[in-house]
């Protein structure tokens, strides 16, 4: 669904594969925390701005609640980007860093997008434990 093609060809696709948007809530600074569900996995997704010595960063925090240990795949990056290390990927506008500590990432894959092979996607295999857990990503704005 784009400005040039304003009709979503399959609006129920996420729902039909088990995804459910559940809404969001705002904190005192009106920063939203989005809530959704994927299968039995409850997810809260919040992004906050960090000014770290002149570099502009966005910290994205995913909070999971799972009734049992499970594996999910998470698409963390899309577009024309390259790999700097196992934990760092960058495009000309953005650098993604996946923190090492307590990360549930057990595998990563860079592959062409199925419907747009000229662009890449980074998908991460997450081993989510039973109960509550979190993981974080850092997105550094380069321009």
């Amino acid at each position, binding site marked *: *669904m784009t400005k040039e093609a*304003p*009709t*979503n*060809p*399959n*609006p*129920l*696709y996420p*729902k*039909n594969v088990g995804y*459910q*948007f*559940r*809404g*969001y*809530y*705002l*904190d*005192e600074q009106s920063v939203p925390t989005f809530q959704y*569900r994927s299968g039995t996995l409850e997810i809260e997704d919040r992004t906050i701005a960090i000014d770290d010595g002149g570099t502009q960063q966005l910290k994205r925090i995913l909070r999971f609640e799972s009734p049992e240990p499970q594996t999910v795949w998470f698409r963390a990056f899309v577009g024309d980007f390259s790999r700097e290390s196992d934990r760092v990927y960058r495009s000309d506008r953005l650098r993604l860093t996946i923190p090492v500590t307590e990360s549930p990432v057990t595998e990563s894959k860079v592959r062409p997008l199925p419907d747009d092979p000229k662009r890449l996607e980074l998908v991460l295999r997450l081993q989510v434990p039973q109960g509550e857990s979190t993981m974080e990503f850092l997105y550094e704005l380069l321009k």
Partner: protein
Amino acid sequence: MNCSSSRLFRLGVDLFGNSFCIWFATTVLATALVRAEDVGERWGTEEREREFYPIVNIPLPKDTVIEAGAFAVLPDGRIAVGTRHGEIYLIDGIDAGKPAPSFHRFASGLDEIFGLTWQDGAFRVTQSCEVTRLSDSNGDGVADRFETISDAWGYANYHEYAFGSKLDAAGNQFVALGLSESYYSNARRKDNRVRQRLAKSWWDRIRRARLPFLHRESRTMELFVQFEIRSTKQLSWSSC
């Protein structure tokens, strides 16, 4: 439907046993309900309308766009208005002899509100993409929780407006869905099971019913839709 102009939205619901009739009159006008005299002026019915109910102009604050799509009366008497731009305003003092009401923006960021009702300390909002429960959890007068009650129908493009009824005696709510485009609906898609289920019961009836009432004037377009739903169960959805 010309969506760039304000509109007057009238919804009437009548229950006849198991038959459920909904009349929609969506009229694109130069102004919204708060300047309803324009309707009478346009139709030449202003004097007749005044015989049945008073028509009062409500001044609007500058720099606001109140393209009203839904109304609700709060327990304290304030009027809540949902707008096409996705905002909810709370209006106080609207019943004064010469109203000079105050407007307070309670929520923003929604998408074309065509259904608004108050239930258990929260709004139930029907917007294009979903039915949402809005509440103010910290009491600062601004909504901060937006809980998805249902988005079961799938939202494909802008023309698929969703019109929400008030709650019935059993607490049920009904949502009527606009066509995806003029004379076409994605309800025909095989992968849209919800819209397909609805389509089986009333899609053809809607299409037949709406055509005779669609006409165009020089600057306005009116759309009257009448349709009948035999079983209310066909419009139920599963909560997320």
